[in-house]
């Protein structure tokens, strides 16, 4: 009896300890998160949920190719369009569908740009629902674990709690490293490569979801010489024609003037900031042809103005000094 009582007491104490720990974790995170601080990739993928409802007009959906190729803040600074990159590393199409379905409970975008690299991810997703839920929880409950060095930015005189974190980069991830792409002589076959069964299924679900919500879907392929093939291009082109979806392949747009000796941080897999500025500028011009409004003077977007100032200081101005002829 005494032993049972002690065991129950031990279990209660353990559960209480863990609960208090997570509560403290949230509390400490609120103090250590500053406006515009870079946050973890896990949280970035869910950053769209921290934006006020019905303020995002364009969602960029995809894997790491999406958040390294488009900087929504620079599109905002140029034309005032409110876009958000909801990208996640190694994302599968099925998880992109889950995320979009959830995001559309809070946002009413006019356009969804679907980055095509994830459509060619091989194999089947393992326990996608479970991992999606784990990603959801991780974004909420592990803020501190992934915020190393946040304490260095603390200004003790200005310590104040943040009730809610936001990503001033709107999903974009800045990287200024350079690792040149080495051309290994890709074969120039004219064959067509199509997504596998699972990816096609969830592509169609995303299309269906967009149609139901009156959202126009556009397929876009970020510049990536390491991943791009003519076969994939042909496959996407045929899918776009079949489903009557506009398609942009930035790999064939010569006007971008990509220089793969300096525009990539990992040998041609992803662009660095220098490359991303080029693809962002191109997409901004494309978005100008769409039915989008300039929201820079809209009072509901005051936080975008503030985020834009921060972006300018933290990213744009710093990079202007470091990159010649940018």
């Amino acid at each position, binding site marked *: 009896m005494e032993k049972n009582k002690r065991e129950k007491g031990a279990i209660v104490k353990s559960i209480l300890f863990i609960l208090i720990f997570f509560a403290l974790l949230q509390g400490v995170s609120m103090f250590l998160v500053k406006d515009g601080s870079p946050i973890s990739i896990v949280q970035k993928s869910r950053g769209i949920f921290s934006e006020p409802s019905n303020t995002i007009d364009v969602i960029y959906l995809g894997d790491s190719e999406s958040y390294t190729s488009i900087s929504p803040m620079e599109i905002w600074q140029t034309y005032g369009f409110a876009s958000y990159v909801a990208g996640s590393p190694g994302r599968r199409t099925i998880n992109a569908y889950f995320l979009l379905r959830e995001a559309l409970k809070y946002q009413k975008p006019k356009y969804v740009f679907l980055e095509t690299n994830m459509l060619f991810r091989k194999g089947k997703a393992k326990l996608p629902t479970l991992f999606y839920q784990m990603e959801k929880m991780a974004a909420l409950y592990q803020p*501190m*674990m*992934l915020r190393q060095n946040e304490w*260095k930015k603390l200004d003790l005189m200005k310590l104040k709690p943040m009730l809610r974190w936001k990503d001033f980069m709107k999903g974009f991830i800045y990287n200024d490293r350079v690792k040149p792409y080495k051309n290994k002589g890709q074969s120039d076959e004219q064959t067509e490569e199509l997504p596998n069964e699972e990816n096609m299924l969830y592509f169609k679900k995303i299309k269906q979801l967009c149609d139901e919500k009156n959202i126009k879907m556009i397929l876009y392929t970020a510049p990536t010489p390491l991943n791009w093939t003519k076969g994939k291009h042909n496959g996407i082109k045929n899918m776009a024609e079949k489903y009557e979806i506009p398609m942009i392949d930035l790999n064939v747009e010569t006007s971008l003037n990509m220089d793969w000796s300096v525009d990539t941080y990992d040998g041609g897999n992803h662009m660095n900031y220098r490359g991303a500025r080029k693809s962002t500028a191109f997409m901004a011009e494309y978005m100008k042809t769409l039915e989008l409004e300039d929201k820079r003077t809209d009072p509901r977007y005051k936080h975008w103005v503030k985020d834009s100032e921060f972006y300018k200081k933290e990213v744009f101005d710093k990079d202007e000094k470091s990159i010649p002829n940018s």
Partner: protein
Amino acid sequence: MNYLSPAFVFLFLPITMCVYMIFPKKFRWVSLLIASYIFFYIISSYVIAYLLFTTISVYTISNLMNKVDRHKLAICITGVLLQLGILIFLKYTNFFIGNMNIVRDWIGLPTLHRMKILVPIGISFYTLQAVSYLIDTYRGGIKEPKHLGKLALFLAFFPTVMEGPICRFHEISSTLMEGKSLQYHNITFGLQRVIWGIFKKVLIADRVNGVVNEVFQNYHHYSGIVVVMATCLYTIQLYTDFSGSIDVTIGIGQIFGITIPENFRQPFFARSATEFWKRWHITLGRWFKDYIFYPIALSKTMRRLKKRFNKRQHALLGKNIAVAIALFAVWFSNGLWHGPQWKYILYGMYFFIWISIEVMLEPTFNKMYARLGIRTNARWFSYFQIIRTVLFIILGELFFRATDVKAGFYMLTSIADISLQPLLDGSIFQLGMDRRDFFITCIAILIVFLVDVIHEGGYSIREGIARQYIVKRWTLYYIALFVIIIFGAYGVNYVPISMLYADF
């Protein structure tokens, strides 16, 4: 996967604990054996075959020793040579080939190709445990009947297989095989020890790694105070990394109610090199003492040698020759054990010379102190000895960490170029740690030092905390956890660093 990876902490360990409790008490050791082999397979893949071979061969040979009376020594020696032979082949073949190639090149012969050999993690540790098992069986120190499964668990036990401590069968088998239930006290005390180990590794060892790597890899660019600083930081890094990992190991053992021997006892409070090695990597020093030093020093050959010198009126030489030969064997082996490089052998010889001087000249030094009126039991004298020992340790670590012997000597001579400029112009904060990093590291080192001071005084901090009221206790635990989470050097901004001694 290592003991500090999320996969181990959040998946492997909790699952092992659950499975352990599901097994009936008599067979809980089996669950630990299964977990250990899964862990070993994850970290070493198919080279688990070497561990299996070691286990089966040790079992077979020790059984044979128990069955025969004659040739027992020969069987034991065969078994020991077999285990050491595997270790030497896997770890040192390319070292020998490399050195042979230098000679062959010099005399105009074609060089030999180095072999591609995959070495299982922890082989240096479990091989010494295997050898100790064989020798202890020969000496009659292992009374229990031989059991292949239990021997396998002793050699492969997952908390100790990567970095030790190097356990003796008789000192761990009772708690290892007991199958004690998981108890709240053991779990909490074990976790406290784990957290302390993580604090040392993640706040200090991993943070200073950037500076240490930068200076030791680019030593031509640095001199003077920068080299001194990097060497001191490396010494601290090695201590906090290794002792931190051992804290995690012992903590995990405690969670299961298994007593794993201590491997550190405030080593920087040692007053001599001899004492240092009784406080640093205790189980390795003990292994060398029991299986190399005493067998050589007390052997018939050495006793005959001593008699011969005594007959020729060289009593002092006679007394010291056995010790010197035994010490040489110990320190040569110690150096080589750390790795197949001449710098490690140099490191071993450095301690051989230092300890030999201490042992052989002890009477001379005592006479000198007496003549000078120095009270060797005075506190100031103890501090002097401690500081002197620490300085010699740091000097040894310079060679231990340098890329090779030549680099070590280069760095040593570069210290002569004393200039405070890097401190004054702030360039010292651009080597891998900024001012805030230095500040946090200094605070953390101070905390570790204070804890060591308290432990040196014989006081157990954990027992002291356990006596406090729950609110005070939990506040301390939460502070410890959040200090690690907030200030720890891990994650996307840091390159993950493996446990330093696992590389040996």
